[in-house]
């Protein structure tokens, strides 16, 4: 009898342990996908983690089909196709994304512009066939660039690009917006925390299982094996823009993928990267691009006028400029020089 008890204990003990593990695993779910031309990962913890992750993935694909410039069925494709000809009626959601983009274009004096798509094509960033166009080509295309030429009618929800040849690209908006939308969707489920990483645009919700905040590193633009520092984040989005990932070289000169709408050329600034931290993901996405184009002094000036978000600038001398309002949350990497501003 005792032998049976002993045997039963050892037989069932491992099984019961693995059973407990399964129960724990059931409250955590993650999914990796490739969408919007980038790699994305959603991790959720909570009773309905699996359902939440599935819904989040579905939302990403929905937004890609709605806002992509290259998908013929998308609403943006329809607007671009009708450029210079007629208005296109779009969904309230697309209208809202375009409206917000135009608002930030005004706010940043055109440093952010959704109509730079013809320039991206000209320089080969859309196709991968990179080239340096001659000045006359750039001048020609520049006549089709300018957010002021995007007409919107709020009452009817219609959008039109004034000139033929104009084209909208919401690439610098969509991932930020998608982060907001995915978060909204997964919060409809019984979840405790989430980490949404859409191609380096990071959105976090709640705290980790350990009770600690999420730790989001900021990539070092000069050394991809290193970080500029680590941010302890909770219920925030963190978006970084820089020219260190997508670029090409010609005659010894580097041309990055972020366009300066004023010059029609890849942005040439004293910044290597800009990170924006805020609860609003679309704002982070847009501002990180706009502030990069502005350059260090203008970016800090912009922040001082609008100090409701966190900002980390990395300049060409290797110095970090960090807004005072995130000083506590941001741990600077060893060896980095940092200036806090307010």
């Amino acid at each position, binding site marked *: *009898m*005792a*032998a049976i008890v*002993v*045997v039963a204990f*050892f*037989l069932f*003990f*491992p099984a019961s342990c*693995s059973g407990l593990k399964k129960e724990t695993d059931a409250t955590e779910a993650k999914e*990796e996908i*490739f969408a919007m*031309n*980038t*790699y994305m*990962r959603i991790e959720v913890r909570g009773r309905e983690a699996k359902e939440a992750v599935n819904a989040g993935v579905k939302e990403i694909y929905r937004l890609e089909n709605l806002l992509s410039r290259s998908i013929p069925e998308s609403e943006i494709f329809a607007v671009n196709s009708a450029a210079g000809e007629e208005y296109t009626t779009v969904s309230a959601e697309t209208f809202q994304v375009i409206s917000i983009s135009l608002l930030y274009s005004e706010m940043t004096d055109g440093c952010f512009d959704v109509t730079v798509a013809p320039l991206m094509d000209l320089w080969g960033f859309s196709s*991968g066939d990179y080239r340096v166009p001659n000045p006359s080509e750039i001048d020609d295309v520049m006549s089709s660039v300018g957010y002021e030429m995007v007409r919107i009618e709020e009452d009817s929800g219609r959008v039109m690009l004034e000139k033929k040849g104009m084209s909208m690209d919401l690439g610098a908006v969509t991932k930020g917006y998608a982060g907001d939308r995915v978060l909204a969707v997964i919060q409809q489920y019984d979840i405790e925390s989430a*980490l949404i*990483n859409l191609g*380096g*645009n*990071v959105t*976090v919700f709640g705290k*980790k299982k*350990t009770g*600690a905040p*999420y*730790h*989001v*590193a*900021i*990539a070092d633009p000069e050394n*991809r*094996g*290193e*970080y500029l*520092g*680590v*941010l*302890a984040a909770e219920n925030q989005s*963190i*978006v*970084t823009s*820089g020219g260190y*990932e*997508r670029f090409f070289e010609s005659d010894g000169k580097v041309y990055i993928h972020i366009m300066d709408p004023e010059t029609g050329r890849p942005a040439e600034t004293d910044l290597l990267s800009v*990170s924006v931290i805020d609860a609003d993901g679309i704002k982070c996405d847009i501002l990180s691009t706009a502030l990069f184009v502005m350059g260090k002094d203008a970016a800090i000036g912009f922040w001082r006028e609008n100090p409701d978000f966190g900002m980390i600038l990395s300049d060409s001398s290797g110095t970090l400029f960090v807004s005072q309002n995130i000083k506590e949350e941001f*741990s*600077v*990497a*060893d060896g980095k020089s940092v200036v806090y501003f307010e």
Partner: protein
Amino acid sequence: MSKENGNDGNAPKAVDRDPAGAEARGSDFSPRLSFGVPDFLLIIVLVMAGLIPFVFGTLRATKESDFEKVAILTVAGQEVWRCPVGNGSEPSEFTYSSQEGILIVRADKSGAWVAHSDCPDQICVRTGKISRAGQISVCIPFRAVLRIEATNPISDAWIHPDGIDAVSE
């Protein structure tokens, strides 16, 4: 259960609970435990069998945890290669082939990197060596993700011991 209720092994009431067993053993009617050699052998065999999952799990964990980090390559979400990274780890190379061409990843004690890719934009190759837990190098055409994961608490003072959850880039 209290002793007053007769849980003492020598109590007559206990005999009544298992008369058949006692009779079968041809002994007195005591419920004393008696282990024979076969019993011990059976227990040992079953205990060892029960521990097999733990032993193998521990061996694997020990092997990886000898190093601070591990490099993992996934393609379309499926893990195709992993390699310990850290002091004492051996240099390693892995070649993945698909209709996109060839993707070669390497790892040594200081990190892992995409050494070659037939992809057109070469972003994965340009990313260079990744060495810190949480870092990734992505090749979109191959749907490949090279990732560094921590197997031990992070030793850098300025990084939380939990490590990095994501990299904003």
